[in-house]
């Protein structure tokens, strides 16, 4: 068994049995459901808004080369510098090179999942730069030395007592159990760091081709500070983030906030078009953007699942997913957790090692219903299961499916098999069945009926 799968199964089993932690997660999400429904009710037609959002993303993704080129032309016209990275290593090298060129010492980051994807912090720290995550949740996870639990709510699984201890240990502050006081500790600590940093690294939620602007969505103001105070701004973005028109944001920004966090809009939705302009009194001297492929084009090449690139990373699919709520975000072992992570990770990192995530779904479809851009998430999980079976069928797949095919196409054999099975079922109930351990641990075999369904039908017993 591959490592990633073994770890997943172990973590999932442990977490699903942790009733306290599950109750904590459910409670934490409680307010989200209420607020989301209140905000959704303000839409005069949520379904049409979803249509518009999915069309906006569809038309950009399906014309990606042209739309990207247009974005790049306009971005450069605004005075920004564009870098292209085929994979994670290239993206890291580009950012390290910029840091070296500008003789940076301290780097401050606002939340950027793409940087988690390319393990940027490790690379920067190895090269000797101090890197601080400024989003409160990311800051806490960085101190904990742990990956984000949820790509929108990074430390939603951590209790306030643990955060207080963490701050006492690392920042030397007095213990407190008030979320407000804890937030203020981080606020005071980080303020000076923005001022001292040479480079601010952010992500991007949308790249607007029409104007060459990038759009960043946040609540805390840390991304605003990260792009205002340091003398260099670097944005790292996947190539699929581009949209055609500025006006597309009038649909996407509110929907991102409503679906993902139950807000009308997040606190700050900011558009950047270049470094400090002539006549402006502050802002960075240089503005770089790194456009990352890292296997996104592989997903693009699959027309059936191409719409997974429409994702605006709102996190709604995680918040409603029964699997996520039971096993937690860390068990996935991926940058992107939950249903969308289970769909795209096999494309980004290989179906063979990550197909087990396709099974991390009850196929209830809650994710598909929640998605503001209408990605057909639960069907894609099925598609991945099918593709994995096609690509490298296990021995069980082959024996079972060929055997089943053989039997089902011969009615007499099917009937005879049924008779044998019914006769031997009481015996099977006593034996430990090979390969069935995990399934049988919490289930009993049913009692065998005396007649098959076909016999009952024939004898008019039904």
């Amino acid at each position: 068994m591959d490592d990633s799968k073994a770890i997943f199964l172990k973590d999932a089993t442990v977490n699903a049995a942790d009733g306290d932690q599950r109750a904590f997660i459910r409670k934490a999400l409680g307010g989200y459901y209420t607020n989301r429904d209140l905000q959704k009710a303000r839409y005069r037609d949520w379904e049409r808004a979803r249509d518009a959002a999915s069309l906006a993303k569809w038309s950009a993704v399906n014309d990606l080369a042209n739309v990207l080129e247009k974005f790049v032309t306009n971005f450069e016209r605004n005075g920004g510098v564009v870098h292209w990275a085929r994979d994670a290593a290239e993206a890291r090298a580009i950012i390290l090179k910029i840091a070296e060129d500008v003789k940076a010492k301290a780097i401050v980051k606002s939340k950027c999942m793409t940087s988690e994807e390319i393990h940027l912090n490790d690379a920067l720290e190895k090269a000797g730069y101090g890197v601080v995550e400024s989003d409160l949740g990311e800051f806490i996870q960085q101190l904990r030395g742990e990956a984000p639990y949820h790509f929108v709510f990074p430390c939603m699984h951590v209790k306030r007592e643990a955060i207080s201890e963490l701050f006492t240990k690392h920042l030397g502050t007095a213990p407190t159990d008030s979320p407000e006081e804890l937030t203020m500790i981080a606020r005071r600590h980080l303020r000076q760091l923005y001022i001292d940093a040479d480079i601010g690294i952010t992500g991007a939620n949308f790249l607007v081709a029409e104007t060459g602007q990038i759009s960043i969505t946040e609540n805390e103001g840390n991304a605003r500070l990260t792009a205002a105070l340091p003398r260099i701004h670097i944005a790292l973005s996947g190539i699929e983030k581009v949209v055609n028109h500025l006006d597309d944001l009038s649909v996407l920004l509110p929907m991102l906030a409503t679906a993902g966090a139950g807000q009308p809009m997040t606190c700050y939705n900011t558009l950047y078009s270049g470094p400090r302009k002539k006549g402006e009194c502050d802002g960075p001297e240089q503005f770089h953007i790194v456009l990352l492929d890292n296997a996104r084009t592989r997903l693009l090449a699959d027309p059936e699942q191409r719409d997974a690139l429409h994702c605006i990373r709102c996190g709604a699919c995680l918040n409603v997913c029964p699997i996520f709520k039971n096993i937690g975000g860390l068990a996935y072992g991926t940058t992107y957790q939950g249903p969308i992570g289970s769909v795209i990770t096999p494309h980004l990192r290989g179906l063979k090692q990550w197909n087990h995530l396709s099974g991390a779904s009850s196929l209830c479809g809650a994710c598909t219903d929640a998605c503001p851009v209408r990605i057909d998430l639960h069907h894609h999980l099925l598609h991945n299961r099918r593709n994995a079976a096609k690509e490298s069928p296990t021995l069980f797949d082959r024996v079972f499916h060929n055997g089943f095919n053989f039997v089902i196409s011969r009615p007499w054999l099917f009937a005879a098999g049924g008779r044998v099975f019914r006769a031997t079922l009481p015996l099977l109930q006593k034996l430990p069945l090979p390969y069935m351990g995990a399934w049988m641990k919490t289930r009993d075999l049913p009692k065998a009926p005396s007649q098959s369904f076909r016999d009952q039908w024939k004898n008019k017993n039904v």
Partner: protein
Amino acid sequence: MSDARSDILARIREALKVKAPKPHLKGEGAPGKTSTVAKPWLPDGGDTAEHSLIILAEQLAKLKAVFIRVPDHAAAAKAVAELSASKNWKKVAYHGHDLLRPVAAALSCETWEADASFEKQRLEGCDAGITTCESIVAQLGAILVSSASSGGRALSILPHVHVVVAEASQVVPDLGASLALMKARHGDQMPSMLSFITGPSRTGDIERILVLGAHGPKELYLVLIG
């Protein structure tokens, strides 16, 4: 070795040779595609100026932003001066704008027109920052500031309190209208930063409990003239 740009663009063009079907739309008909058409399926922003102002007031209250309506410029200056006195502000930074100079002049504390230089530390030490804005979006209670209307990027985010002084005529019904207005006003010479501010800075990162004043301003005031 070919460069990354042409490689990635070639990969994309290759991948897109097979077409994907259009998304399956479920709303009542396809959305209008011209970009200036108001979108009647989004949250309502009001169809008259009066209506928009009512929605704006509701939204701002829900966002925990403080909405102060005043009849004229003199009343605006008075309102900000009272605020400053009651909160005991010692240092206030403001954007050098005709609308704001009289407001700053009416304050009894130390004031500083922050446009000329970029002194981060000094700005951090200010109790409040006063700016104008580009427009105000009734639909969402969002205030659009820019590096042009707000004395750069930091003045509206670094001080602990943000005060916006604006005219009632700057209220637009929805987000689409405010974006269209920016394009009309600035064309392809947009200020390097535009920011929709929707309430005071906040976080829910600790147990998903709402806390105001994460990294940006803890308090947000909109003083609307007219």
